[in-house]
């Protein structure tokens, strides 16, 4: 069997994998990134919305090739149609872009390659190699040929369907409350406001929301996430989405360019995403914002943390937890609090009735919110609907 030897093997060439690979290779580690698909970034399983503020931090150069559309903000819609406008005034740099993931993911992989990463496509990890009780790499299939990739550290960046963590015995299992099942069309020929991302809350999407993310003047990603615990019948997500589209004349006349199925985790941060000679990043580590279901930014930031720590470990020739503990510390310092807070907020939000959601969104739209933080939002509710705040007490 063919054997390859590297310092680091990254499984999965999504944003989290590419970011890890880049930051490790940049500091001199010998990195191989393997991707089971034949094309990085395709097919897209994403609504493609990102905020802007983190992009520079992780060293991504903005390129018009992958920015599909710049939006002015977001419209949060309540079940009966109240709209709360989020824009630069109250959200600052949270507003952002709708990207083209096919090109975005490739741009990130190209950055990794420029930093010295070797990439293999059509190469799927099939199991871990254990040696003397330690992880020593992965077995994989490349164009149907079985190979062994020996490495000092394995990076599980294999997305929502992640196997790497499970092979290693890291508990990444999810409760039904912590999963959103998703469906999306890219609709063209629609009438809508192409300058805002739109989110509709409430029973149109039980426990989740319907999104409209602009791609261009008459084309958008129109999709839905439904909390798994609230699914009553098979195919509910598609049914709810079709119903939503049928009710909006501007969308109803649109035609689909593609359909996307998928799922996101909306869970609290995992207790541990690393062990001797192995780390998980991105969706594989269940790093997703439980309120928005967004994971691109978090995955990239965590990938940067992982890459930097791995490079250190390679230099010190120690990829045990002695070194990798710093990865846990770094990503938690940067991301854990928000994931916790938003998970608790999600636990609450998903229990609210349409009437309550109407009241809340109406209050925001009527009185305005200066800054988009959980604290500020709650302060506004407290002032105008003190009876609702007790539901959120533990968040304050």
């Amino acid at each position, binding site marked *: 069997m063919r054997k390859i030897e590297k310092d680091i093997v990254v499984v999965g060439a999504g944003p989290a994998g590419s970011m890890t690979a880049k930051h490790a290779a940049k500091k001199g580690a010998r990195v191989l990134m393997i991707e089971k698909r034949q094309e990085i970034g395709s097919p897209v399983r994403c609504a493609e919305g990102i905020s802007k503020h983190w992009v520079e931090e992780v060293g991504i150069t903005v390129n018009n090739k992958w920015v599909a559309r710049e939006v002015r903000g977001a419209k949060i819609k309540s079940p009966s149609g109240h709209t709360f406008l989020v824009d630069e005034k109250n959200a600052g740099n949270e507003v952002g872009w709708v990207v083209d993931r096919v090109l975005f993911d490739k741009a990130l992989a190209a950055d990794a390659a420029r930093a010295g990463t070797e990439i293999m496509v059509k190469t799927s990890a099939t199991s871990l190699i254990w040696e003397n009780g330690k992880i020593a790499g992965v077995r994989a299939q490349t164009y149907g040929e079985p190979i062994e990739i020996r490495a000092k550290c394995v990076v599980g960046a294999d997305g929502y*369907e992640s196997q790497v963590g499970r092979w290693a015995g890291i508990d990444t299992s999810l409760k039904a409350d912590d999963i959103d*099942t998703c469906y999306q069309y890219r609709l063209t020929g629609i009438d809508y406001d192409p300058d805002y991302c739109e989110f509709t809350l409430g029973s149109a999407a039980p426990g989740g929301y319907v999104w409209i993310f602009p791609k261009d003047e008459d084309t958008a990603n129109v999709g839905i996430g439904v909390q798994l615990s609230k699914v009553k019948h*098979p195919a*509910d997500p598609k049914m709810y989405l079709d119903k939503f589209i049928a009710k909006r004349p501007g969308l109803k006349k649109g035609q689909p360019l593609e359909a996307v*199925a*998928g799922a996101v985790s909306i869970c609290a941060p995992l207790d541990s995403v690393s062990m001797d000679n192995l780390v998980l990043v991105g969706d594989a580590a269940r790093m997703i914002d439980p309120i928005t279901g967004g994971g691109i930014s978090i995955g990239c930031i965590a990938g940067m943390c992982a890459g930097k720590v791995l490079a250190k470990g390679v230099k010190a020739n120690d990829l045990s937890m002695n070194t990798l503990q710093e990865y846990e510390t770094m990503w938690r310092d940067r991301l854990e609090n928000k994931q916790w807070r938003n998970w608790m907020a999600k636990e609450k939000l998903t229990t609210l009735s349409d009437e309550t959601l109407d009241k809340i969104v109406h209050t925001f739209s009527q009185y305005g919110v200066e800054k988009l933080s959980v604290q500020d939002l709650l302060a506004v509710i407290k002032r105008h609907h003190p009876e609702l705040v007790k539901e959120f007490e533990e968040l304050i």
Partner: protein
Amino acid sequence: MIVSIEKCHHCGACVGSCPKNAIFLNDLVLVFSDECNRCGRCVKLCPVGAITMEAKK
């Protein structure tokens, strides 16, 4: 477990959601292992309803 290849989008959502890790996506084909305890989660999870459970033999 039966998967409708006409409906399946090969998205892997069921794979990542199975509590028993009993589903594998081999290229475009879903394979179920003996670990499956027929909990039914994947049937509800699949956003297009591509999975059905056959009656117990």
